């Protein structure tokens, strides 16, 4: 589904060039649950942003369903993110003024699709939040916030869900719940890529890739 060929990413920090990725080759199959691990600063998040078309590589090619996205225009990348990619972040990034329902429905505003109650309720049920739809994020636990963020990531029916340390701010019980949701999504055919420092969770994934110094170590 996604193929990365010799991906490089160099960015400037002050007067110095930092090579975050130094030639990554990676293939991700449809429906796969992939865990990316590695030490801090290894380039995991940079890789995830390139996978999610949020960032462009400085070298190499990203093939998304066979289409090279490395040189796509901004508007095409936006369309791709809307239609095919879901994001989940460590800090959840829920909007405090909006209810759980509205937070889940937010991406539909940009894709101009109707936010029907049935659709949002189905997603909320899937992540176990059907009783929390009218609550504000401040009334939720960390695990509930992350489950809201997962539902938000799924609302546009993406082909791939990218999760950047989704359990990084959660205790082990909630981490397990989140992992189970991601595993069940993958079993239902959704390609899922998860960055994690949690070696136990990574070990339970279908495949684990370790990134170190901008290179893949399997």
């Amino acid at each position, binding site marked *: 589904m996604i193929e990365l060929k010799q991906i490089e990413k160099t960015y400037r920090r002050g007067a110095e060039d930092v090579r975050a990725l130094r030639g990554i080759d990676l293939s991700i199959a449809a429906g796969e649950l992939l865990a990316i691990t590695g030490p801090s600063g290894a380039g995991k*998040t940079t890789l995830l*942003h390139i996978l*999610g078309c*949020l*960032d462009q590589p400085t070298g190499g090619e990203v093939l998304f369903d066979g289409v090279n996205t490395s040189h796509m225009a*901004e*508007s095409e990348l*936006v369309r791709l*993110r*809307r239609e095919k990619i*879901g*994001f989940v*972040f460590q*800090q959840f*990034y829920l*909007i*405090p*003024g*909006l209810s759980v329902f*509205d937070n889940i*429905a*937010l*991406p*539909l*505003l*940009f*894709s101009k699709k109707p*936010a029907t109650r049935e659709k949002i309720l189905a997603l909320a049920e899937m992540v176990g939040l059907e009783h929390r739809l009218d609550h504000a994020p401040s009334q939720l636990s960390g695990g509930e916030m992350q489950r809201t963020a997962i539902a*938000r*990531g799924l609302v*546009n029916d993406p082909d791939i869900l990218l999760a950047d340390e989704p359990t990084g701010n959660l205790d082990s019980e909630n981490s397990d719940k989140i992992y189970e949701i991601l595993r069940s999504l993958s079993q239902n055919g959704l390609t899922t890529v998860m960055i994690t420092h949690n070696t136990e969770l990574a070990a339970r994934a279908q495949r684990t890739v370790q990134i170190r110094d901008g290179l893949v170590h399997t």
Partner: protein
Amino acid sequence: MNGYLKLAVKNLLRHRTRSALTMLGIAASVGVLFSVLSFNRGFSEGLAVELERTGLHFMIVPSGCAHEVAALVLHGAVIPKFLDTAVMQHVNEADGIDLATPILVAQLPDPQRGKIDLIYGVDMTALSAIKPSWQITGRIPEQDHEVLLGYEVAQHEKLQPGDRFASPVEGVDLMVAGIVGLTGSQDDAFVYLPIATAQKLLDYPAAATAIGVKVTDPTRMLEITDALTAAVPGIQIVTMGEVMNSISNLAASARALSLAIVLIAILISAVGVMNSILMAVFERSQEIGMMRAVGASRSNIFRIILEETTILSLGGGLVGIFISILGSRLIEAFVRAVMPFVPSGNLISFDAGLAMGSVIFILVIGLCAGIYPAWKASKINPVEAIKG
């Protein structure tokens, strides 16, 4: 409510105090703008009505400055130059004159009471034609020794119709025949008396400050004034239109200054909007990064921020108009207290067109102020924003 609007409202509600204060800044400037525009409009209309109420078409005055005539007509000044009432004979003989009445306006010191009366001598039979809108308690003087008091004079001296009015001239006893109801104009400060009595009190026999004239056919006014100017030497004719222009010109600089101050206030509130929205954008950069990640385009982000500005501007504009209507009497009282001449009647009244114009104006200014923060927000790099 559409999704963008809902999102914008929720974002503003997250910092209620800041949003309320920003909106209040806009409301204050729109309120002042609306009040000043209403006042300026009311001033011009009030002036026209006031001059029309005199029932006169033009004034004959000694040759001199038209501004002095303006001051005379508005009762606020005393002109040291007089006309001889013999001019009246020429005026009465002229063709097309419906009414001509000499007017003597002067200050009359009364050393015993330690004050100065403002007196307005006029032919009492012509008074109802000159001041048709007056409400009089009692009656118009019919005898030479009778006077009519302006509202403030009667209040100050605590006089009623039938009371004796203290005269500064020995041997002249005056009596109050009537009292003019409150006009809210300078008319309230005068003592009106038959012109012959005024001439006697002032010791200016046969003198008049001006002669007020009403013509039978206003379309022939130019012809009549030309004929009079040619026939009578040493006079100047000033039409009420010219008087209005003179006063309008005098007031124009004050109006321009007040508008300039209002525009500065609006500029300050626009900077306030820009500052407030810009601050909100910086605070929410991670959220904006998240929205970009989940499919928002730059124009989507631009729209969200601009809708927040629209709500602040529109809300502030409507609140400002509302406050201005509620406080219009207070503002009017203040303006009357500080301005040398203000026509009588309600000067600040609600005008839908003016209110809508003021709101649209602040909306445009608000949107201009919102463009920079919206552009800044749309340029936020999602990768850097999400990293924090």
